[in-house]
């Protein structure tokens, strides 16, 4: 066969080889650089990862006071923990004593091991802070309302899983701190016995014992418990959080983007930027068949794309900025402060004081009055209360505005004062004068379980928010009062548990006063 006239396959091959890198890019990003509105749009919806975002983003969502970047900061911290966690898994061995040795190896033998561990620890802590603040942001801007109720619920799920991830990770180093924190945690799971014992029915009905057994896989914190916590930490909870996150993000889009005030467009009128020209300048060339089979209205129908800008680059650059800031913060903290590692776990000598991770110290403070109330009943009530917020407050006034709704900022200020003062006063009283058992040594346990600082604080908060509902004739006011009290109580109890409790859980003004032993 003779080659076709004028064609040189070999030359073509060389040409193809030379242009391969360029072609690679072209085939990956089919529509060229995101320079025009059209190519910016395809950049978003043509990409499997980016298309969780809408193609255009409302200017209100981009104001930094709308979100404070807290949601993105949560996911950024999660991603950092994910990557560093996988790195740690190369060296970590989930077996008692070997686990501790591998933590030592990571700290002293593995190149950059200590930094990776620090990054993991700090990003996990930062994630907890960011998630709590993000929840507060969503609450105070009243973003949980229709149609976002369900996403708020998903958020509560995310909060629980985030705390679960931190707690299961806390055991893995198998040092004294870890061992005793988990011993306490597992016994909190068993604490329904406080009630069943007092009623004398533990023999027939023992949910507490079952919970502890499922968690530990044995009667004590040992190899079985470690492998369970490990599995939860590296496999089950990450999968659960990934699924919840997918739903969370999907719902943000389907709920019509972020919540914004009804008058957002008027308020933005003054700030209108040149990018926000009318988008649909011609009649659309296509009608949407898919849209036709959906009953009712989706959140987008009837809203023009006015006051929106292309997500690429406006939203993505902001998100990248938050990611970099989060990473920078984790790195800075990791360089100046090492993750702790105490002595090898010793089941015979408790760490004194034995403290859980800081975000659980508020609970530990309550637990020091009643294990069941502080460890199970009140956390359950708090979670239930948080979950019900969007179903109990269905008003519309103030959506999308900070501290929006009846009562507003003055009510929040007053609730913060109330929320802080009540636990401070009750704690001061209990620390100074003791509690029921010190006065009446023979008092039945059920009375102590029912009446203790933990239940009194909770009842005070509940009454205060009922009063707020009446005073302002508004369910939103009640929610504002309750949530603010909850944050105040969390803060006070955490600070007391962290800074003012020493050996034997005795109150000390400062760790410098702790007895030496």
């Amino acid at each position, binding site marked *: 066969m003779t080659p076709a006239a004028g064609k040189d396959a070999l030359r073509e091959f060389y040409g193809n080889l030379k242009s391969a890198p360029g072609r690679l890019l072209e085939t990956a990003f089919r529509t060229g650089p995101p320079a025009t509105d059209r190519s910016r749009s395809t950049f978003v919806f043509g990409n499997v990862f980016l298309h969780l975002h809408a193609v255009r983003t409302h200017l209100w969502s981009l104001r930094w006071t709308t979100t404070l970047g807290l949601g993105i900061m949560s996911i950024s911290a999660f991603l950092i923990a994910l990557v560093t966690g996988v790195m740690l898994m190369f060296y970590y061995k989930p077996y008692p004593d070997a686990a501790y040795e591998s933590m030592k190896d990571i700290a002293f033998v593995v190149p950059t091991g200590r930094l990776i561990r620090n990054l993991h620890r700090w990003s996990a802590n930062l994630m907890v802070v960011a998630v709590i603040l993000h929840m507060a942001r969503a609450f105070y801007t009243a973003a949980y309302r229709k149609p976002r109720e369900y996403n708020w619920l998903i958020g509560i799920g995310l909060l629980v899983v985030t705390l679960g991830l931190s707690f299961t990770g806390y055991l893995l180093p198998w040092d004294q701190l870890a061992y005793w924190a988990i011993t306490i945690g597992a016994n909190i799971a068993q604490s329904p016995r406080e009630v069943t014992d007092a009623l004398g029915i533990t023999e027939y009905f023992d949910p507490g014992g079952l919970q502890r057994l*499922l968690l530990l896989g044995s009667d004590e914190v040992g190899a079985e418990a470690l492998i369970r916590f490990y599995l939860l930490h590296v496999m089950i909870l990450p999968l659960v959080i990934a699924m919840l996150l997918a739903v969370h993000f999907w719902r943000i889009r389907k709920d019509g983007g972020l919540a914004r005030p009804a008058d957002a467009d008027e308020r933005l009128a003054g700030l209108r930027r040149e990018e926000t020209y009318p988008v649909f300048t011609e009649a659309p060339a296509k009608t949407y068949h898919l849209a036709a089979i959906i009953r009712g209205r989706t959140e987008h129908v009837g809203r023009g794309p006015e006051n929106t800008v292309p997500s690429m680059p406006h939203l993505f650059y902001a998100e990248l900025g938050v990611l970099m800031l989060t990473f920078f913060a984790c790195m800075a903290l990791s360089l100046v402060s090492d993750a702790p590692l105490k002595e090898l776990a010793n089941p015979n000598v408790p760490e004194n004081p034995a403290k859980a991770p800081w975000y659980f110290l508020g609970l530990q403070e309550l637990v020091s009055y009643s294990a069941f109330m502080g460890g199970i009943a009140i956390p359950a009530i708090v979670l239930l209360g948080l979950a019900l917020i969007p179903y109990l407050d269905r008003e519309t006034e103030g959506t999308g505005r900070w501290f929006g709704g009846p009562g507003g900022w003055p009510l929040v200020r007053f609730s913060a004062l109330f929320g802080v003062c009540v636990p401070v006063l009750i704690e001061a009283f209990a620390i100074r004068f003791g509690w029921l058992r010190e006065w009446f040594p023979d008092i039945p346990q059920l009375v102590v379980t029912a009446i203790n600082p933990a239940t009194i604080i909770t009842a005070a908060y509940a009454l205060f928010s009922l009063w707020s509902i009446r005073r302002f004739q508004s369910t939103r006011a009640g929610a504002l009062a309750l949530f603010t009290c909850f944050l105040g109580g969390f803060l006070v109890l955490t600070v007391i548990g962290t800074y003012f409790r020493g050996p034997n859980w005795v109150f000390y003004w400062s760790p410098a006063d702790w007895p030496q032993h």
Partner: protein
Amino acid sequence: MTTTPKAGRSRLDPEPVPRRDWLGLSSLAAMGSALLFGLIGMLKLPKAAVLASPSKKFRVALPETLPPGEPFVPPGRAVAIFRDGEGVYAVSTICTHLGCVVKSVPEGFECPCHGSRFARDGEVTKGPAPRALPWFKVGLAGGLVTIDEGTVVPSGTKVAG
């Protein structure tokens, strides 16, 4: 929407699935119950038939010089053993609050975790612990004491030997 059901059906508004499709329904029910029972069976997985716990029984020799009413804690065990005029008895040193190991002090026992205090006989004197420290079954054999941490006996049960 303002469409009335009688007005000619649109092709976007298809006929609802017939409810009396009993074959479909019964296979659905069969699948559901199979799944349910499978799940219930699998729920047993996390609870092993034999728990990986160390033996609850052990034997020790009490020191000759143990003063009456003073605790002896064998190394590596969470039990305080006493001997007095009435006999030998063993009190758990695991706090009934949240499982820390209590320390023996002159007045009895003290828990480092949340400050529960117990008298020498295990009764709660202070703090959040909901129950007294349990007493364990004690046996005397030769010069040795056998303790069974798996068997709780009523407080005050002393074994004379």
